[in-house]
């Protein structure tokens, strides 16, 4: 969303205040909350599956490998699905909602489409690979965009008066 578009959104839905881009710490906390939710659900599901398998007395090594691979794939799918679904529906994951931030299109402020949301997730993974260096641009960019934001053309803004 360029400044003109941002100002337009501000005039329409938040007339008295300036659109505010969110920084690294706030976004990091929101991500940590989301990660906690994802892992909690994954642990509960994994525990349930392990319990069921122990009841069925399935304990062959080859099967264990298959189960671990399937579990990993499911975990990745669950993580991707979590972020893509929330970003492309409300623009807010539970962590973002708690921190009153939202992800939106950088050009017109609209909610992301699933493909853009998937691209943003991929960009987030890429940004994390070089020791999280891909997130450092958030500190210097005028609109506080990380590498994944630039790739997907998104911004993270304060949510209360736009979404809530």
């Amino acid at each position: 969303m360029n400044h003109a578009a941002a100002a337009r959104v501000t005039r329409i839905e938040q007339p008295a205040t300036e659109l505010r881009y969110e920084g690294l710490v706030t976004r990091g906390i929101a991500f940590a909350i989301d990660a906690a939710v994802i892992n909690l659900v994954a642990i509960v599901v994994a525990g349930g599956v392990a319990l069921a398998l122990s009841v069925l007395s399935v304990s062959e090594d080859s099967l264990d490998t298959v189960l671990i691979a399937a579990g990993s794939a499911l975990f990745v799918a669950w993580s991707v699905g979590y972020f893509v679904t929330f970003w492309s529906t409300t623009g807010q994951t539970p962590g973002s909602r708690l921190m009153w931030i939202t992800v939106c299109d950088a050009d017109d402020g609209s909610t992301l489409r699933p493909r853009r949301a998937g691209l943003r997730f991929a960009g987030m993974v890429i940004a994390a690979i070089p020791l999280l260096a891909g997130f450092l641009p958030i500190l210097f960019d005028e609109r506080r965009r990380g590498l994944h934001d630039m790739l997907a053309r998104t911004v993270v803004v304060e949510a209360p008066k736009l979404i809530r």
Partner: protein
Amino acid sequence: MTESFYIEGRRLLDATMRLGGTVGLAALRPASGAISAGLRLEHAARGAAGRRLGDAALAALDAALVSPVAEEAVDRAMASGLARYVVDRLLADGIVEHVVDRVLDGPELERVVGTVLESPAIDRVVGQTIESRLADQAVARLLASEELWLLVEEIAESPAVTDAITQQGFGFADEVAGGVRARSRNADAWLERTARRALRRPPR
């Protein structure tokens, strides 16, 4: 000429009548004075007699009340069913309701209740009641009764209570989240200032 004679005659007749009226009134004045004096005397005599009779009646009532005859009279009246009859009439005529309404509407009841509540006797009575075994027994019985716990359970599960608790929980969570948000935004600003200073970039 006839007309002037008639007018003169008429004037003479009027003067004669006025003179007659004046003379008549003067003649009747002693009589009317006597009647007025008589009326005043009668009024004074009646007032004096009424006061005397009232005093005598009150003295007689006082004498009757202090005499043993009064108790006997009351006993006999009670035995005769007169009291019951009087009560029945008071109830039937709505006089009791009127009295109750008057007491409830009037300031007297509030005054009496205020006086009672402010009296030290009430403090003593309440203190003795609380310290007595009666209170302990009442509490013990209350706690032992299943109805109490059913009531508590009913109240605890009521939508109003659960809504209130939920709202309070949300309010607390929102308050905590608000504190975290404020601190995280301060940390954002500090981190950016530090990073920009380290790279010799101008502040935002």
